[in-house]
Each structure stands twice: as C-alpha cells, then as structure tokens.
C-alpha cells in the first residue's frame, strides 16, 4: 500500500453526473439555479476536507450528443456561468479550492485571467480554473466569429494550441504585477511602482495581448490551472501548461500509460522540477451495501443509460478506497470523483470514503494549508518578471 496521502476533489454539475440523477428522491432539480443549492454542495465537500471542487460549464446548452446539439427534454438543461457561481460560493467557504470550468477558445484570455484572479481574491487564495476548448460548430455559432476546419484532428490541434496560448497569456497576466507593485508612497505621490508592472507582449496566431493586467497579482501568485485530458493534444497541454490533469484511465495499466505521456510532455516543456498532478476521474455510485449501490446504478441506467467518458464505479466506500489505492500505485496523485447523484453520492464521499481513507492514513484529518496551492503541495511561485533588483526589495 502506498503511504503517500491522496488528493481528492469532486466535480459538480447539475443534479449529478448521471443523466437520470435529477429524478432520484433526494435530488433538487428545481433548485439548480439557486445559490443555496450550490452553497450546500460546496459546504458538504468542505466538510469532507476535500482539496477542491470543480464546477462544470460549457458555452452552449447541454447535449447528450458530444458532437452536436440535441433537443431532448428529459434531461437537465440550463447552466449558470461557472465563474459567477464560483465567486458567489467562495465567501461562504474558508478552506476548499474552487475551480470553475472556462472555455478558453473563442473567449478573451484577458477576461479569463482577471476573472480567476478576482475569484482568488474573493476566496483568499483558493481559486483555480479548469480550462477547456469548445470544438462543436454549434458552440462557435453562439459567438459567431470563426469557422472550423473540416478535419477533426486538425481542428483539435488548432484548438489545443490556442488553449495553450490562452493559458500562457492568463499566467503572464497574473505575473504582470509584481507582489509589491503597490507602494502608496506619500512622499513621491506614487500609488504604484511602474517598474514593477510589466507588459506581457504576447503575440500568437489567434490573439495578441499587451498587458499588464488590470488586476494586481492574486493571493496565490498563480491560481491553479487544470484540464480534462483524453488524448495526445490535451496530455501535452497538461504537461506544458497545467498544475493538474484530470484523466480517464480504464485501469491501472492504462493509467500508467497516461501518466507517462503527461510526464514526457512535462519534461519536454522543461518542467521536471515542478509538481504536475495527474488525477483520475471516476464517476461514483456509493452505498454502505455493495449490492444496493449496484442496484441503484442499474436503476439509474434503466431510466437513462449513462455513457460516461470516465470509469463508472458502483460499490461501498471501502471498495472505492481499495480501487483508489490500486490506481494510486500507477502514478496517479489524486482523484476527481464525479458523484453520480447529488447530493447523495457526495455525502457518501464525504461521510463514507473520506473516513475510510483517513483510517488507512491516506487522507488529511484537518486542512493544513489555507490556499489551494497549499493543499496541493505547490509552492507560491516567484513572479516571472521580478528581477533581482525589484524582488530584492522584498527582504
């Protein structure tokens, strides 16, 4: 058994990951657009001492078809903007990390950067972002400024290259104010030291951004950047640009291959010395009784079959703990669990799985850090623009 503690997060979306979740007795489908519903969920996740929650989002309306819009009326439709939701929830919590999902193709990197920096201020250092691309033509039509190449592989290369450029801009903007740029120097009348504000001068095929940011460097310096990755292009994005990759291995052997691909990209980007987490996504249906969990999944699937990109696990918290240990030995550093049904499976995570992992010495028994980077074992990074001259004035 590994003695390295595990990291745990949950993915929150609508009534839960399973498309039939909203019909469960405990579901609250008529409250999906209220702050109270989300506040309760994030409070429950924080009660379980989880590292973070991610809040799912997309440009367009949900669809059961990953490649096109649909017109189904028997599944949850409608979503709040995940960044607004994250900001609304942040002041109500004190420890847990909060990562809204943000589409970084089509959108303005400048706005993404200041939005996430603002959530970092509002949460006193607990913000991150799950970046994603929008690859459907109907998504592009919502903003209406581009057409896509017909070849899907070419499209994905284009979009993930753009996502990497967007993350580069977002990160440079976070560093574009040195930590002590605000001097409030009454003697000279200067509020800021302009020597400690930096143009980022990014130029790429899709956008160029001059900087500096409008927002001072956020509390974590660099909020946490994550991405969900299923194939080579996003593996490369995780390796070159992210702090966490969420991946979807079928088993431990698959996990080893994925981890190796990401480590290779990480090394290729000269980031060997940095911590890049690779977490497996698992959709979970949990019960104290294993048969009851499997029956519940069968019942959900009978209502509306779940076609999930992640492995679906139905069982007891102890069985899940065994699986996490096994996958952990394949090089994964944590897990993002997707509760099949909210709030039921979230409560099984926080009140069943977490105590089980704690008994095995594999999970924290109290929050030990105050920032998300702290939970993840990431140091607060130096500012890339700080020179010996300006940084020296810290000490």
């Amino acid at each position, binding site marked *: 058994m590994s003695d390295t503690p595990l990291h745990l997060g949950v993915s929150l979306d609508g009534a839960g990951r399973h498309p039939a979740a909203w019909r469960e007795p405990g579901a609250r489908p008529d409250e999906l657009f209220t*702050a109270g519903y989300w506040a309760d969920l994030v409070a429950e996740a924080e009660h379980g001492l989880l590292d973070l929650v991610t809040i799912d989002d997309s440009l367009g309306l949900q669809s059961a078809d990953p490649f096109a819009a649909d017109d189904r009326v028997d599944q949850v439709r409608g979503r709040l*903007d995940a960044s607004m939701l994250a900001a609304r929830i942040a002041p109500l919590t004190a420890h847990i990390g909060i990562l809204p999902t943000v589409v970084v193709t089509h959108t303005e990197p400048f706005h993404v950067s200041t939005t996430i920096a*603002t959530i970092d201020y509002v949460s006193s250092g607990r913000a991150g972002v799950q970046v994603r691309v929008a690859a459907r033509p109907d998504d592009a039509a919502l903003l209406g400024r581009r057409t896509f190449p017909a070849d899907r592989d070419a499209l994905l290369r284009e979009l993930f290259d753009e996502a990497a450029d967007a993350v580069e801009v977002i990160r440079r903007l976070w560093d574009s104010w040195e930590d002590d740029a605000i001097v409030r120097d009454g003697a000279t009348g*200067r509020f800021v030291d302009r020597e400690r504000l930096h143009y980022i001068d990014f130029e790429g095929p899709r956008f160029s951004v001059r900087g500096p940011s409008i927002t001072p460097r956020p509390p974590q310096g660099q909020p946490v950047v994550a991405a969900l990755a299923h194939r080579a292009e996003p593996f490369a994005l995780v390796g070159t640009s992210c702090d966490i990759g969420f991946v979807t291995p079928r088993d431990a052997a698959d996990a080893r291959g994925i981890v190796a691909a990401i480590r290779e990209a990480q090394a290729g980007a000269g980031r060997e010395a940095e911590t890049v987490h690779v977490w497996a996504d698992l959709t979970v249906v949990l019960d104290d009784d294993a048969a009851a969990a499997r029956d519940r999944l069968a019942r959900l699937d009978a209502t509306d079959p779940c076609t999930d990109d992640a492995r679906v696990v139905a069982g007891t918290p102890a069985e899940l703990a065994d699986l996490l240990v096994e996958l952990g030995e394949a090089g994964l550093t944590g897990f993002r669990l997707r509760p099949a049904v909210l709030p039921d499976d979230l409560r099984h995570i926080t009140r069943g799985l977490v105590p089980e992992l704690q008994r095995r010495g594999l999970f924290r028994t109290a929050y030990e850090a105050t920032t998300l980077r702290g939970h993840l074992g990431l140091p607060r990074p130096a500012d890339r623009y700080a020179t010996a001259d300006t940084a020296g004035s810290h000490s």
Partner: protein
Amino acid sequence: MSRRQMHLAAHFPGVNNTTVWSEPESGSQIEFASFAHMARTAERAKFDFIFLAEGLRLREQNGAIYDLDVVGRPDNATILAAVAAVTDRLGLAATISSTFNEPYEVARRLASIDHLSGGRAAWNVVTSWDKFTGENFRRGGYLAQGDRYLRAKQFLDTVMTLVDSWRGDEIVADKATGEFLRDAGAGRFDVAVDQFDIRGRFSVPRSPQGRPVVLQAGDSDEGREFAAASADAIFTRHGSLEAGQAFYTDVKRRLAAYGRSEDQLKILPATTFALGDTQAEAEERGRRIRRQQVSGQTALRFLEQVWNRDLSHLDPDGPLPEIDPLVVDADSPRVSQGRAADRMYRDPLATAKEWRERAAAGNLSIRDLMTEVTSRQSFVGTPLGIAEQMERFVEQRASDGFILVPHITPGGLDDFADRVVPILQERGSFRADYTGTTLRDHLGLAPLDARSVV
C-alpha cells in the same frame, strides 16, 4: 410624508484622483473585505444599488503607466457575484463594455448574477473603441467612432434577445413523468445584424428579473437617445441644479417617442460630498479633500490631458502655459491614453481660452485652477444641510436620486449612511426599508411588459 422619493446608489471608489489613497483610513481597493464593507454599508442604509466601473487597460500618460492615482481593480461582474453572498437586497451594477465582449457571454454572466442574487443584477452599458484598450483583446481596436453606438445598441438588443429566449415556464422538473423541459426549443435564438451573426440556444434559464436593469452613461445627443430608448437609469455628471434640470427635461421628453413614461428612466447624477458638524467645518473639510485630490503633479497631468502635450516642466504653482493645446483627430494617439475623460473636452482650444480667463480673473495657479474645475464637491454641509440640498434637486426635477462617490475606500460611505440617510428617512424622502426584493422593485420599474415576451 408626501415628499418625492429619491433613489440612492453607491459608487465603489474608482481609479482616479477622486479617491484619496494616502489617508490613514484609506484601505485596499482590491481585497474583497473592502467591497463587502461598502456593500454592507449601502445595504444598511437601504440604498438601491452599488455600482462598479470597469477597467480594461491601465492608463498611461507621456508613454508610461499613470501612477499617481489608485491603480488595479478586480473583474467587476465577478466581484459583484461575490458581493451577492454578503448582501440580501442591494442591487449590483457592473459596468461591462460592449466593445471587448460578446453578447452571449455577457448575457450569461448577467443572467447568472441575477439568479445568484435573487434578482439584483444591473448592467452599465459602455462603449469603447480605442486601439489602446484593444491591444489587450482579440478584437483589437477596430471600431470606428461612428459605429460605437450602433454596436452598443445591437449588443444591448442582442443581450435582451438572449435573456428573453427563455420565457420562465419551461422547466417542469417532474421526477415522476421524467419531463425536465416543457419546450424542446427553450433558449433558441437567431440574431443576424451588422455586428452580430449568432444563433443557437442560450444556456441560462430566465432569471428572477427577466432582464438585468440597464444603466447608461453618456451625455452626447446619441447617448441621450440611446438611454431614452433602452436604459432604466442614467448615470450623469451634471453638477448644478440648472444644468441638471436642463438635462432632466431633455432626456425625459425623449421617452414618449419610445412609448415609455417619465418614471421608467431614472436620472442619477454622480455626487460627491463633504460633511461637517457645522457649515464652516464641512467647507474646511471639503477644501482639505480637494487639496489631497489635486496634488501639484496631478494638476499638471490634468492640464496635459487637455493640452495634449508633455507639460512636466511647468510649475504647478505657476500660471497656465502660453502655448496652446495640440489638437489632433479622434483616432490619433494622445499624450494620455485609456481615460474616458480625454475625450470630454471636445474643443480644447475653447477650454484653454475659458480657463485662461478664469485663471486671470481669480489670479489662480495651475493647481488652484485644476482643483476648481475638476474636484469641487457636489454637496458640502451639515447632515441636515446636505439632506435639504439633495431633496431640492429631486423636488425640482434636476434628478431622481444620486450615485454617491465617496473619496475613501472602504469607509467613505459610513458617515453618509449614519448621519444623512436617517434624516432623509425621517423627512420621508428616502425609504425606511426595502419594500421589494429585486432591483427593479427598488427602482419602481414596471413589470416587464409585452416587449419582452416572445
């Protein structure tokens, strides 16, 4: 108790010289605690809303980042979503540019804030087109000056089309029957106009207010017409009673053409104040604040913004320069960049002439003159005196209320809330408590009518 009711809003102190950052009580302009403090103060005083300006590029002058004023702010929609968590009734007004955003994203943000605040979202629609700001965005600074109201109008109309794409009765969420949506076309929209060619389904169901409250600032004829057609409130800068009355009359008379009654567009001038126990004390305090707001360096920078020349060699305690302002066309780079006020003085030569006469008549130095033309408080007096002045503006149709601009972050509204508001409430000119839950309720706006029903 039959006094005309006023509306009050709080402007979070901005990144210009109105905000005094050097006082011991001057706090952070970026920490959430500052926003929470001012919002809670405004809500305690039963204000209609809190208002945030927008920043998209740090200002520059003489080729360098402007460093004399407060610099740095959050994304204002995001910070207001967080303020919703620490307030229950206060309206939340975010300034969002129609130039460097897309309607779909802005509509999602505003509708989401409206859901997450229980119906308190407002949007101050602004336009910008300068290349300087555009350097931070994909779009760049492509918009010709003549197109900015066209884009703003089409942007606003498109956002309204999007938020109206859900009527509000589509979600059934019936667990027993398995029907989540009543209507497979919920959220469907199709917009094809000069500026936007977009279609699909909007992803946020109808929010409590249906539409965000729309604010607009802009004094030009086009701006007034735009407001009369589309806005629920106007943010103005008219200082005197007479100027306010002229503006008020002009804008209100434009409403009929759009089938709107006069009470459906609130006129709210930006208002500064200096309070004292006596009139003399208030005036002394006002003078002291103005000296803090306009240092010698700040005075020179102001002068440069109108002269469009580097005047850093001048003595701020000396006379105005002999040389005339440098006049350039609207699209040319100026000595000062990223500042809306750069374009306020449309005729710099006339402004220079007027200022020279004024300086000569009063024997004023550059700093004296700049202090006088840029920072005189709207209201100076005792709490009772200020209450009476404000009531006079409202009774005599110079405004429907005020957007108060404190000069200190975050406590600059505390005195006003504690000392002036109770007098207004006692005299019956301002609400003693909220009577509704949404910002539309606070502003007395009619329920959304047929124009918003698809």
